[in-house]
């Protein structure tokens, strides 16, 4: 059932020293066609009912993720559970303001997730920089760097707000609108340029498979 679309040209990986280029895959990301009709609806239902969170604490808001596992909020009942590796996760929760250093890790981890993949950005800082809007070291809008499906505003948003955000994400997925991965691939050059603009010590391949 592989996609018939033509493969894009390999990436240049100019950020890497020549002797290291052989160590990384240089394939460019591409868009993947969704299945059709009811089948895709069924699969989207399954995706929405099995949200595996990438539990990387990328900002101060990550502290609000922890209560979700506790008996009080119990995200498991919504089919949400944490996963320690991006390979197996489907939802990336951006936990608040992202410093430039963290952004590099965010990009890498996001690219390493298997699609379809979704991003939930929590906290005002991910939307416009929040109280750090004029900081030299934080990025202001996370969706200039990776596609975001759901923003959860607040500083900090309560766990209840997070749960509400996840419900919103489920709705989006079920509606078939959770196509961030394809969007990223489609606008890859734009995203990459934005990323490289702020990340100066680029020592990764252009796309982290």
């Amino acid at each position, binding site marked *: 059932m592989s996609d018939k679309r033509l493969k894009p040209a390999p990436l240049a990986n100019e950020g890497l020293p020549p002797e290291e280029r052989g160590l990384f895959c240089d394939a460019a990301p591409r868009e993947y066609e969704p299945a059709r009709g009811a089948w895709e609806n069924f699969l989207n239902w399954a995706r929405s009912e099995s949200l595996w969170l990438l539990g990387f604490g990328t900002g101060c808001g990550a502290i609000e993720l922890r209560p979700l596992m506790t008996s009080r909020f119990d995200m498991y009942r919504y089919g949400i559970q944490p996963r320690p590796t991006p390979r*197996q996760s*489907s939802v990336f929760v951006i936990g608040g303001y992202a410093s430039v250093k963290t952004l590099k890790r965010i990009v890498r981890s996001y690219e390493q997730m*298997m699609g379809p993949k979704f991003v939930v950005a929590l906290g005002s800082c991910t939307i416009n920089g929040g109280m750090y809007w004029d900081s030299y070291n934080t990025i202001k809008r996370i969706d200039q760097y990776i596609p975001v499906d759901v923003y959860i505003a607040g500083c900090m948003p309560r766990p209840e707000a997070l749960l509400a955000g996840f419900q919103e994400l489920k709705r989006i997925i079920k509606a078939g609108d959770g196509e961030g991965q394809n969007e990223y691939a489609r606008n890859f050059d734009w995203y990459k340029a934005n990323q490289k603009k702020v990340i100066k010590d680029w020592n990764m391949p252009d796309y982290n498979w």
Partner: protein
Amino acid sequence: MEPTLLGRIGYAFVSLFVITNYGLLLIGSMARISAKVQGRVGQPVWQPYIDIIKSSAKRNAIGHGVMFYLGPVFRLAGGIGTYMFIPAVFGSVVFRNFSDSGDLLLVMYFIFFGQLGMALGAGEGGHPYSAIGVSRGLAQMTAFEVPFALSVIAVAVQYGTLDINAIVAAQQGGFARWTLATNPLAVVAAIIAFLGMSGHNPFSVVIAPQEIPIGPPTEYQSNLLGMLQTNRAIFNGAKLVLYMNLFFGGATNIVAMVIKTFLIYFVNVFVGQAFPRFRTDQSIRFFLGVPTLIGIASVIIAVI
């Protein structure tokens, strides 16, 4: 009446279908029981199904090479194969599986088939955490195999056979004839070994989630992960059926099988919820200590 070969294959598929669904539901319900222990509601019982569907429905996947792709194949084949070599329900033609391929020893060694293949696949992933996890897992495995082997030997001695069918047959006729009643020490040793075998607490350092993000399968995703999840259900089921046959009188029908295996697995969850984690060297020393002595005692009892 002896079924034809085609019939046997058909029965095998039925048997496999039953154990797969049962295994998935068992995992789901145990997760729910764990949640109750922690004061939560917990995930739906059918959550494992959804997870597998989702994993299989991933639109892309990565692989590190042939062996990486074959790892889950080995793993799943190991799980199914193990089940196939165990008669699941005593006296049932449908659930006899292919247990005429070999006796208890075949089952005990076929368990390694999937583990070995998985370890190799994870190894080709090139991730050091995979290798660390495998090294821990293998190290623990050598240790918990000792009490397990001793209790199996006790059973073999007691019933004078290694044929699983014969062992079950010898336990028919009421609770007093179960190994649990006739040689409780063997059961104790085997159950402790089972804790290690299924990787629950306190023997879960193999898949320490944050230290070595879940160990061996850290690079697995998409359908490859889905196969591993499927295998978890089947393999668990197979091991539980094996334990039931060896120590708890086997089962003459599906209901008895479900109840017994559920209870055996419950012991695991019970202990797992109550204990923290051992380091690898600690668990090795643990298994080679008291459980091994219990195992030796059980052999002595069986000989007497």
